[in-house]
């Protein structure tokens, strides 16, 4: 009889024990799947399963506040954020499984299994007392008692988390918000700029091929050379000479745009105007 079983059995009756064993199997299986799934989206869905089963376990154990926080904050907010990020990165993006340091995965796996065995032994050997002492902070009174703790004993760390929140908000602004340094060009400005520029017509789009169509695939000119105009300049510079060229037999990768120079405002005509 392991420690977790003691925890589950001591609080409540047989129904809770049944719920525990069902959810234990589900959550551990989902957690393993989360680690082993190569696709991030599958991982996120399995993570939702883990969090929901934990929430139910908390509820069964008589901690309704924790159960709802688990659902509202983790499943609701954090996981949605994960999914947003995945949508930005690309739903079909899979992890690269190539090892950059040789033997790293084996070593990490051994160390992880070692730690797991160690912690399992530690928890298994520990004599954990009954989880819910009589007359307790669990069940119906749970929320009130938590409130009491938060606003008396732990009021200082609780208030302190505001510093954390301000830092997080400030950090998000610093890392994500870019202030305009020049006035926003109006539609009239953009139209004038386009007509006066070299390309009144829209710039060519990226290439679409049988074996790949992505924003970083250059379109081919009639003579078979890739067209530098068909790529976003930032992307062309990023990929440099390692630009992907569709299929075999296509010569000469694109020269990197503006090598060495940190990209001036004059580097390229305004792509925003060209690709509405």
């Amino acid at each position, binding site marked *: 009889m392991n420690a977790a079983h003691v925890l589950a059995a001591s609080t409540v009756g047989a129904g809770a024990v049944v719920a525990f064993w069902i959810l234990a199997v589900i959550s551990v299986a989902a957690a393993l799947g989360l680690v082993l799934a190569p696709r991030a989206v599958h991982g996120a869905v399995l993570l939702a399963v883990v969090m929901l089963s934990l929430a139910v376990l908390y509820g069964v154990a008589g901690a309704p506040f924790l159960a709802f926080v688990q659902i509202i904050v983790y499943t609701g907010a954090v996981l949605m954020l994960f999914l947003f990020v995945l949508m930005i990165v690309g739903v079909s993006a899979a992890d690269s499984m190539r090892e950059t340091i040789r033997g790293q995965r084996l070593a990490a796996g051994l160390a992880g299994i070692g730690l797991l065995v160690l912690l399992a032994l530690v928890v298994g050997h520990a004599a954990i007392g009954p989880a819910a002492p009589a007359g307790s902070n669990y069940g119906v009174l749970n929320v009130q008692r938590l409130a009491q703790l938060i606003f008396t004993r732990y009021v200082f760390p609780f208030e302190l988390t505001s510093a954390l929140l301000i830092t997080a908000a400030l*950090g998000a602004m610093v890392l994500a918000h870019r202030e305009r340094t020049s006035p926003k060009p109006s539609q009239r400005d953009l139209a004038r700029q386009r007509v006066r520029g070299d390309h009144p017509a829209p710039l060519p789009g990226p290439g679409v091929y049988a074996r790949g169509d992505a924003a970083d695939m250059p379109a081919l000119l009639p003579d078979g050379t890739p067209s530098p105009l068909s790529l976003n300049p930032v992307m062309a510079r990023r990929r440099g000479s390692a630009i992907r060229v569709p299929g075999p037999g296509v010569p000469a990768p694109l020269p990197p745009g503006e090598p060495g120079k940190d990209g001036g405002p004059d580097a390229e005509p305004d792509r925003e105007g060209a690709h509405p």
Partner: protein
Amino acid sequence: MTSLSGALAAATITPPHIEYGQLSPLLVVFGAAVAGVLVEAFVPRERRRAFHLVIALGGLVAAFALIISVAATPSLFAHGSPGHVVAMGAVGVDGPTLFIQGTIVVLAFVSVLLIAESSHGVSPFAAQAAAVPGSAEEREGLLRGISHTEVYPLTLFAVGGMMLFPAANDLLTMFVALEVLSLPLYLLCGLARRRRLISQEAAMKYFLLGAFSSAFFLFGVAMLYGYSGSVSLSAIAAAAATNVSSATLLYAGIALVGIGLLFKIGAVPFQSWKPDVYQGAPTAVTALMASCTVVSAFGGLLRVFYVAFGQLTWDWRPAMWGVAILTMLAGAIIAITQTDVKRMLAYSSIAHGGFVLTAVVAATAAGLSASLFYLAVYGLTTIGAFAVVTLVRDPAGEANHLSKWAGLGKRSPWLAGVFAFFLLAFAGIPLTSGFAGKFAVFQAAAAGGALPLVIIGVLASAVAAFFYVRVIVLMFFSDPAPDGPTVVTPGLFTGAAVAVGAAATLVFGIAPEPLLALASHAAAHLFVR
């Protein structure tokens, strides 16, 4: 019925009692940080820096004055009491904590001077952190000559967290403090104006590894809670004295909490983030991390291991021995192979962490006071050294490669001389503060029965002295490279930082007694429980 009794229970909550006077140094720093955020929101861009400087430096000075006034309160230490536990048991106010907080505030003041340096028209921080490196937007921002002024409130938040970290009397408060001090540092690391990709890489690495170590810390807290039924340090100590039934949980808790704390110090084998982060971060932020963060992390480590695990010295000492030996040797030996001056200083900082750990191992009042003294003098020397690093520049920014430092002594003898002085202090040459510090920690370790550790420490110091002296030889006895860097004239702020570092290194080297006496007075009653 139950809901009625619940309502009754809720009605009988007694309001918490907060000792605002004894918490005032912390509150002033956090208040200054919030004021800095308001400045960001309401003051026009051109005038923000001046406002920030007044708020940040003024806040730190006020915090220092308040620390002294709290320390001078006669009722705090009346009848031989080690101090008070305030804020409903969340914060301990005692001698070592006040000493550490004072040290952090002084070091932060000098670091803020470095952060604020812009006498050559360039701040060390990015114009627009959100602009992609190498993009036209980045260039526009640079040409406009703007820079992020959010660094001041972020620095103050980090300093507030650092001041709370060694004062936290329960592990929950300590974890919140750990995050409050870490989160702004992750951000600050990624805001370098030059070499932005390496700076962003440093921030990313620091964030991921830091989050990982926080998770270890939390696992440890959970284990200790499972063992003792409390997160309070004194309750854990009380449980450790009586409850022997599930000691495995206690040991696992010690190990995991220890990993979290040793990571922040950068002790081997948890040091891998340090060279990369120190190299990539803006040098002013590196100075802040190498001084204040290390002091704060040692403060937290000392409190946890002296208060919560104070009766288990026999259990954690062997592991701490191993970590101290590995840290001293690995830090000193790997530093020899470095070719970048910031990476070299990072490994040197790792080695110095090992030297302080020898005094921590002693687990005595002498060990505590030696650690406090070492941290204070080492922090000041480190800021001075990094301030010198900011001054050696070539057109691409700071010239950090050691080959470019060749012959610096012939080109600008004063600067090279000051840097050589700092290096000698790191090496522990007599008449520098480094010697006094090393002497104090090794003496405490030897008195605490860790003589082999002292011998290894002296050997590691000899190895470390080799690469410090090698840099000095490189600066003074080799020919300057033709495309070598220029040494810019230090602005007022950087000059002040270098001067404070050099003066402290000299004064505490020649006359360490007053500070030593203060440290041993502060550590006399150990931590409050």
